[in-house]
């Protein structure tokens, strides 16, 4: 396994005490796997992604381990993480394309980056950089431009190139396709696939709220809700046979091209996610779940219901247990 996250918890310091934004999350990624980390605002997905690379002053890791390529990442120690950033793990932060310094040319930004990471053979890296620009259809003269001279899509692709220049094992892309036009969304999505296929990055975690994009580029999807993982499975399983009621409701609420309101009425999910400052006991989706029953006041464990398909839901695990029981009985008979 290329990436393994075990029981990771991350909290924010606030005036009212620690707020746990990521609660006991575990998952693993194989080499070359693109995993989509999906969830709504306040689910903790951004926190999880960012914690793997850079914990800012307000955050602290309160438990768990992260292993990449067999060695443990010292995520709690910002200093120790420095040499690993961009080389082992890399992050394209949300709003990165708006955060490019406007007073420096793109080429200069790149060389500065290489210098700060004490890259030995800068020339070789720059040649590789030009090759990659060409690969994704950007012309070399992009290096001679300022960030405001590029369109939104171009800037986003430039930031992804910058983050992957040193071939990290794990790339975390935080909402890289939001706020882009539909055509550039596709270009950026395909770029991630391209880079994975060519081995520029080993594994990718794409953080987004857009399940449709994940259906295009992700091999597997993890759904987060209120700081916990609700479901994790292959893209096909999530889209076609989701087991967690939240996932089911989410999929059912997505409009698709060709579907009109007079043909199908979609429904949303009533209510709001619980506050993470004082979360409810047991399953956090309980209050909005149409299938909630008394067992849901206990926290459901995140268990593998089917091969490669993990869910944290009493209904799903109980049903699976009942089905297995029936199958066993039939066999006996």
């Amino acid at each position: 396994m290329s990436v393994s996250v075990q029981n990771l918890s991350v909290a924010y310091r606030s005036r009212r005490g620690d707020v746990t934004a990521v609660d006991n999350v575990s998952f693993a990624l194989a080499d070359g796997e693109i995993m989509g980390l999906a969830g709504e605002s306040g689910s903790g997905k951004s926190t999880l992604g960012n914690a793997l690379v850079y914990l800012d002053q307000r955050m602290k890791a309160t438990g768990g381990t992260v292993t990449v390529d067999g060695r443990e990442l010292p995520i709690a120690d910002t200093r120790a993480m420095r040499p690993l950033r961009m080389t082992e793990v890399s992050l394209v932060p949300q709003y990165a394309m708006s955060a490019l310094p406007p007073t420096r040319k793109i080429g200069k930004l790149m060389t500065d980056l290489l210098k700060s990471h004490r890259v030995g053979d800068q020339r070789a890296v720059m040649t590789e950089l030009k090759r990659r620009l060409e690969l994704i259809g950007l012309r070399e003269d992009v290096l001679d431009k300022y960030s405001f001279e590029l369109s939104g899509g171009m800037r986003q692709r430039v930031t992804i190139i910058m983050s992957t220049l040193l071939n990290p094992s794990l790339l975390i892309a935080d909402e890289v396709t939001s706020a882009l036009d539909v055509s550039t969304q596709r270009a950026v999505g395909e770029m991630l696939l391209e880079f994975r296929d060519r081995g520029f990055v080993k594994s990718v975690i794409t953080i987004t709220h857009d399940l449709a994009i994940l259906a295009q580029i992700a091999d597997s999807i993890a759904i987060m809700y209120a700081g916990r993982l609700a479901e994790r499975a292959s893209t096909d399983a999530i889209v076609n046979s989701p087991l967690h009621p939240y996932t089911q409701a989410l999929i059912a609420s997505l409009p698709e091209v060709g579907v009109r309101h007079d043909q199908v009425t979609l429904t949303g999910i009533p209510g709001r996610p619980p506050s993470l400052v004082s979360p409810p006991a047991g399953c956090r989706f309980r209050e909005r779940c149409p299938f909630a029953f008394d067992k849901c006041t206990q926290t459901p464990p995140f268990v593998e219901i089917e091969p490669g398909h993990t869910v944290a839901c009493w209904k799903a695990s109980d049903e699976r247990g009942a089905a297995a029981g029936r199958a066993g009985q039939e066999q006996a008979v």
Partner: protein
Amino acid sequence: MSTAVSEILDEPKTPAVGRKRSDFVYYGLRNKKLVFGLGLELLLVLFAIIGPMLAKYGPQTLTGAQLHHPGGTYWLGTDSLGEDVYSQLANGIRESYLVGALGAVSAAVVGMTLGFTAGWRGGILDEVLQMVTNIIVMLPSLVLLVVIGSYLNSRSVLFEGVFIGLTTWPWVARAVRAQTFSLRSREFVEMAKLSGKRPLEIIVRDIAPNMASYLFLVVILLFGSSMLLAASYDFLGLGPSNTVSLGWMMNQATQNAALLYREWWWFVPPGAVLTAMVAALLVANVGLDEVFNPKLRQQ
């Protein structure tokens, strides 16, 4: 990331504005600069109020004891005419505060009116007002003061205050105009327009309150600079002709070569007190800025 954080922590997304008063008080009390600056300033204001009442002599009463060292009956000594320096100091502080307030208020009124108008309307009106602003900035106010002063029989505190106000409003206007420009394209302003509100209502109710912290800081700075400017004018002998002020004291001291004669009690107190008055204000201002803008805080 920051929006994700604020969603998780249930905090408002905009700094300063929209937070509870208790937040301001909490952070305010913990900000050393604000506490120190404000504290010192309040002490000085207190002194300005009570000080003159404790003086045994009037500021320009001739006591007959010239150039006494501080001590005994004359707490800060006397000047070359025999006037009590302490009394002059106490009354001088009052005058300085008064002129400072007058100057700040008149600059604020003119500056804000023109700034809001230019910022809201834009277009030709804005260009004209900008021209006017630039002209005022370029005017040598000292020369102007001399020229105008020469036509007047006597100069009063009111005159000095208003004069300072009318020559320092430009940078208030510019700051207000810039903020108004950026706020007027905000969506809640468009919402107010879509609700049939008139421009004046929108400026007063929607735009100005969002600048409140900024305006507050600006006014404090104006206050400090007015006092300093007034002291400079007084020092040059261009101040009010009939009152005692800190600048006037320093002017008198210089004219009588107090420095040469080491009559420190004459020129050091006014200078020191003036410095304290302005510096405390500026330090408090920096602290207040930190309270309003969480990003400036080092937590």
